[in-house]
């Protein structure tokens, strides 16, 4: 694991200080938003599994920053960060987590199935690796129409051990679809370490045989992710061919809400978590902003309090929103056909 890489000392050419501040504030919003989730869950405002992205924010933020309005993205169930990075209204995301009618999917999908069609976000999916074949279809559709759009497909290290992902990677290369496969390697598939689950733990190495370019990059440093993502997405948009990128990252919290510190002790040490927390992408980026004179301490405090306020506002909005009406139970099963009520 090469996570010790020092924080970058210079801004990439294409990144203005102003844009960096925007991205920093995006990460901050994701963090503050998700910090509201566990308490709301404990109060019974949410159900389900609830997987937070805390620690991995630089990955979604750094890649999605390069998406055009007409590009697509698709991801796994750990999807709050991706939706917020893409610009989905935090109120509607929180309302979805609360199972309310104002949520992004009318409260019918929940935490694992966020979506934002207007922004090309084709959804979060709950079956590990299940959406990777879908990304090939999206990429094929792009090729079919002959546009220069791309599709970003985010999944975890656990997905590398499920068969359909390998069918999809091969087919992506066979049809040369413009898809960036972004494997967020946070080192654990639930509690199973990647070294145990993958005979070749270097996942970029493992993907190399599929006949597409691959790369392993650091995921804890926003600047590094941003710069690498820019090159990769540019390549895929203009070549076109798929690209597999393994991003080394870490989740500071458990796999899901039930994976509490007692359970986590069964698979990782406090020291290990502390080691990675030292590489917190938000703290790192804040330090960069200060050291390079891009922001002042008071600005950082102000942005933090705005992010916190946005998160609290999202909670208040969700809490005040109505549940979906009972008719919704039978809606959307088919586009054109009623389903008989069972009572």
């Amino acid at each position, binding site marked *: 694991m090469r996570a010790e890489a020092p924080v970058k000392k210079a801004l990439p050419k294409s990144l203005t200080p102003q844009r960096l501040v925007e991205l920093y504030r995006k990460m901050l919003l994701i963090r503050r938003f998700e910090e509201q989730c566990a308490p709301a869950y404990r109060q019974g405002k949410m159900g389900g599994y609830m997987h937070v992205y805390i620690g991995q924010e630089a990955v979604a933020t750094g890649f999605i920053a390069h998406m055009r309005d007409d590009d697509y993205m698709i991801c796994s169930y750990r999807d709050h960060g991706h939706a917020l990075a893409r610009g989905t209204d935090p109120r509607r995301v929180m309302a979805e987590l609360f199972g309310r009618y104002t949520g992004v999917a009318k409260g019918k999908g929940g935490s694992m199935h966020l979506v934002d069609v207007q922004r090309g976000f084709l959804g979060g999916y709950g079956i590990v690796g299940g959406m990777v*074949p879908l990304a090939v279809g*999206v990429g094929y*559709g792009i090729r079919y129409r002959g546009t220069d759009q791309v599709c970003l497909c985010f999944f975890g290290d656990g997905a590398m051990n499920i068969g359909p992902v390998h069918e999809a990677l091969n087919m992506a290369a066979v049809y040369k679809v413009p898809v960036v496969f972004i494997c967020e390697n946070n080192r654990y598939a639930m509690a199973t370490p990647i070294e145990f689950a993958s005979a070749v733990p270097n996942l970029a190495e493992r993907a190399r045989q599929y006949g597409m370019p691959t790369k392993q990059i650091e995921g804890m440093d926003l600047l590094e992710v941003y710069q690498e993502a820019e090159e990769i997405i540019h390549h895929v948009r203009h070549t076109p061919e798929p690209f597999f990128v393994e991003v080394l990252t870490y989740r500071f919290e458990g796999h899901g809400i039930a994976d509490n510190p007692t359970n986590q002790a069964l698979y990782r040490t406090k020291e290990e978590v502390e080691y990675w927390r030292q590489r917190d992408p938000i703290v790192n980026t804040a330090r960069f902003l200060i050291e390079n004179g891009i922001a002042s301490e008071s600005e950082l405090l102000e942005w933090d309090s705005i992010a916190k306020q946005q998160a609290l506002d999202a909670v208040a909005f969700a809490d005040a929103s109505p549940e979906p009406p009972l008719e919704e139970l039978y809606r*959307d099963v088919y586009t054109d056909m009623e389903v008989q009520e069972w009572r």
Partner: protein
Amino acid sequence: MALITYREALRQALTEEMERDPNVFLLGEEIGRYQGTFRVTEGLLQRFGGMRVVDTPISESGIAGMAIGAAMIGLRPVAEFMTFSFALIAMDQIVNHAAKILYMFGGQIRVPLVFRGPAGGGAQLSAQHSHSLESWYAHIPGLKVVTPATPADAKGMLKTAIRDDNPVIFMEHAKLYSTRGEVPEDEYTIPFGSADVKRQGEDVTIIAYSQPVLMALRAAEKLAETEGIECEVIDLRSLQPLDMDTILGSVRKTHRVVVVHEDHRNVGFGAEIAARIQEFAFDDLDAPVLRVAGADVPIPYARNLERAAFPSEEDIIRAVKRVLA
């Protein structure tokens, strides 16, 4: 009317829909250069090119997923499974993705696609290649399930399937591909959820779909000739949606029902039909609803055993006599 095969009828439907709508494309194993394992797609690669007639690796999950993804952004893929026995590999994509996407995203993403191919057995393909399993798909909210028995129905319903905005499971039967039937020359479609009374009768209602419809019609003719028993044969044509009105109308006329399918009897689609008939027309029944279905065994290879595992005309005749006894 033209007399053509079931296979040609399917090909006509694919061709006409591809001519009509540039968003329609085909993908599957051996459908292009090899012209289709059952020759359904013969000539289509030459006619429409490799972008619209896509040969795939042997990757059923990949095929299904690719079709779903393309459908999500507005294309209309028609994915062929070489047989529905191989679709089992793609079950997660079909059940947990295609069937769920509209609902779990609150109605915002449509998945207009067709999964088609042969189902069923009868060619000594033994245990792993003889599945029907239409009841599995009909069990899943979000999927439509279509099982045409004649060339005319196959053509009209495949066109409807391609135009449908939902995932459609379109099950053909390998034994039907070479059967012939009259097909209208003019453009037509056949809606889902409308059963076809393929033979009128007063004494017993036989409900069937796919290849067993032909068997039921032959059994009905024999019963009329030799016993003077007049069977009404209903071809369901689609299982989801299911045309209960036609079924119940016939039950109210004959008061006796035999359901026929090739799929296993246990928890098969016949059980659903029998349950609904007793629920909605209990007082109209003069006898229990009987099922003639595949044996509850893995399908064996030996010709005599395989024959015994699938329903036959004789089984249907016996059941009709029993339901009248």
